[in-house]
């Protein structure tokens, strides 16, 4: 298969997957399909995953989010067949792993799928380096090659020089780095991460999340990430699947879930989310109403403002690089003074990048009436965030009774 063809295949494609535990899982699944609920079947066994379907395109971080007992850990284990699905299909890069024999399944696991575990699952009798090299050893790679690759992976996660230590000599955060290095050393395109950062303390967790995002950007891996922490889900996920009682209740981007929760359960969940630390400038930016070329004069600016009913304009040069902002009263003075150019009239404008969280924009927004500009690395203007937009984005879409709208006609 050629590379270009390969890119059209989803990394993961899950169709109607059920997973039940008990003496007769098939009969539990059959009853579920006939409409029985999880509660009704409790006496016969446990319906861990009920009718899950989703697709993960290559290069995406797909987060499955749910509380404990929601079936998310079982779901991720159906993806590499550690817990084979009772019914349904699981395709990994187009290959249905529910229909292959155990030998083939092992080779798919070796070549395509790596996994990171909640409690690290390192082998205490092996050194850090031997742990990182485990997947390569299983594949039968010779010692010097696998040691080299393991060392590279350890360097990548910031554990240079730790290869000879034992896992029990490391702190929790460092152990999980070893877990991550072990998964990276396997050089698989798909990585499954089961509550990988949940056992770490908050500071280390944030550090690991940042590191993961960076690694993903550099290496372009597809990641399926399980978590019970919505903030983590929203920080990491390109898309998020919300799970409850074995079912996926909603799949969507951070924005979709925040602004359009599928049901009360999801709505309840997102209530506590600090939107300012989840939403980014890129997600809420708007196209600017009008742009003023830096070579134009105050008259043109005045006309543009009048046409667009605005009191400020972003100024850009010919290659759309942001120069600053002009305000109505300055322009009015400029016109009155008969100025031909904008020199002296342009005021500084706060600018930020697309991936900045809203929390970091507050101070700048409060100081500048024109709001903020969003620019790319070369300084080109991508969009603007007026103050009202910022306020709106932070607001919970669910109506509240603590604010009344008062309107009284004044008697003539």
């Amino acid at each position: 298969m050629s590379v270009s063809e390969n890119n059209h295949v989803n990394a993961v494609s899950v169709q109607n997957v059920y997973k039940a535990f008990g003496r007769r899982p098939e009969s539990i699944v059959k009853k579920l399909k006939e409409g029985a609920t999880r509660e009704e079947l409790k006496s016969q066994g446990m319906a861990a995953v009920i009718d899950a379907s989703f697709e993960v395109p290559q290069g995406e971080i797909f987060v499955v989010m749910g509380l404990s007992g929601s079936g998310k850990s079982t779901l991720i284990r159906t993806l590499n067949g550690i817990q084979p699905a009772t019914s349904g299909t699981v395709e990994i890069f187009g290959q249905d792993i529910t229909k292959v024999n155990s030998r083939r399944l092992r080779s798919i696991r070796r070549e395509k799928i790596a996994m990171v575990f909640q409690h690290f699952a390192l082998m205490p009798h092996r050194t850090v380096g031997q742990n990182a090299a485990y997947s390569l050893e299983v594949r039968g790679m010779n010692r010097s090659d696998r040691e080299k690759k393991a060392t590279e992976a350890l360097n990548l996660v910031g554990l240079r020089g730790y290869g000879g230590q034992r896992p029990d000599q490391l702190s929790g955060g460092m152990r999980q780095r070893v877990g991550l290095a072990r998964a990276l050393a396997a050089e698989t395109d798909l990585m499954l991460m089961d509550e990988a950062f949940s056992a770490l303390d908050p500071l280390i967790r944030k550090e690991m999340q940042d590191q993961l995002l960076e690694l993903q950007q550099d290496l372009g891996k597809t990641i399926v990430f399980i978590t019970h922490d919505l903030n983590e889900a929203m920080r990491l996920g390109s898309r998020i699947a919300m799970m409850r009682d074995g079912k996926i209740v909603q799949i969507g981007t951070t924005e979709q879930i925040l602004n359009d929760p599928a049901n009360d359960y999801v709505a309840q969940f997102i209530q506590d989310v600090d939107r300012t630390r989840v939403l980014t400038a890129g997600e809420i930016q708007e196209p600017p109403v009008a742009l003023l070329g830096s070579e134009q004069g105050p008259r043109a600016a005045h006309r543009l403002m009048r046409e667009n009913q605005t009191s400020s304009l972003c100024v850009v040069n010919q290659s759309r690089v942001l120069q600053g902002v002009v305000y109505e009263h300055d322009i009015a003075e400029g016109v009155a003074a008969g100025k031909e150019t904008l020199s002296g009239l342009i005021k500084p404008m706060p600018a930020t990048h697309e991936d900045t969280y809203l929390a970091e924009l507050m101070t700048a927004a409060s100081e500048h009436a024109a709001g903020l500009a969003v620019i790319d690395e070369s300084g080109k203007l991508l969009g603007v965030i007026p103050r009202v937009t910022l306020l709106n984005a932070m607001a919970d879409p669910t109506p509240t009774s603590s604010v009344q709208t008062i309107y009284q006609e004044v008697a003539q």
Partner: protein
Amino acid sequence: MIRAAETDGMGIPRVEVGEWIETGFNWARSNLGEAFTLMRNGLETLTEDWLETLLTWPDALVLSVIFALIAWLVRDWKLAVLTLVLMVSIIAMDQWDNAMATLALVLVATGVALVIAIPVGVLAAKSDRVSGAVRPIMDLMQTMPALVWLVPVVTLFSIGVPAGVVATLIFCLPPGVRFTELGIRGVDREVVEAGHAFGSTPGQILFRIQLPLAVKTIMAGVNQVIMLALSMAVIAGFVGAGGLGGEVARAIGSLDIALGFEAGLSVVVLAIYLDRVTAAVGDGSGVLTKLLRRSKPAPEQAQPKEQAEQQATAARDI
């Protein structure tokens, strides 16, 4: 023929369990006689001709020093000194040859027991069904009064060392199986899952993950096997296994208190030595482990933790 039991069994018929078992043993003797003869000869050669000869070939003092060296390798010089004192005390009681005969019997019984017990334990850990089937057999072997085994063993193997070995084997096998099963079942589930997740074969999982991680528990089992073998080896003296057990049997027969205690104390001494050494092998605290670890390729220079955390942070910031 079925007749009513003589107790107040309310008409429950007398079941001749004992007779059935005896018939079973008799059948085995007359039909599998050659197999038992073969086993008998094998055990005899192994125990008496090889191990016992080997253990009695060097001078008692030389061997004592060798035992002390082993103790030093697996633990430390303190255990080595203790070993030397213990061994010399056996020589002083003039029980050295008997002690070596018993040691040979214990080692053979233990070796055979482990060859059987560890694979069975592994199977029992893998399958609940095997585990369920094996457990009552283990109970039977372990709780049946030890002397009861002696009679059928003698009928199959006749008087002598092999009978002693087999009787000992029956008694000391169960903890080997139990501890192996326990050890393997006790391996962190997530670690085994990790093995599967990276595509390990069942053999790789067993030999690279489960057995190495269960080794402490298995060694505790080995320790138990040896201790039980030693206690049974004395009883085996009654079926002509010789050694310290033979002395004890002789002392009982002739009401010889002095001989009884000298042989008995020698057993205690052997027990202490074997217990300490196997326990030390189990926790891997000895000089030998350190030497083995040192001989591996030297680990790269490791920095203190804080420095590495900083490095990790720096790596992220780049």
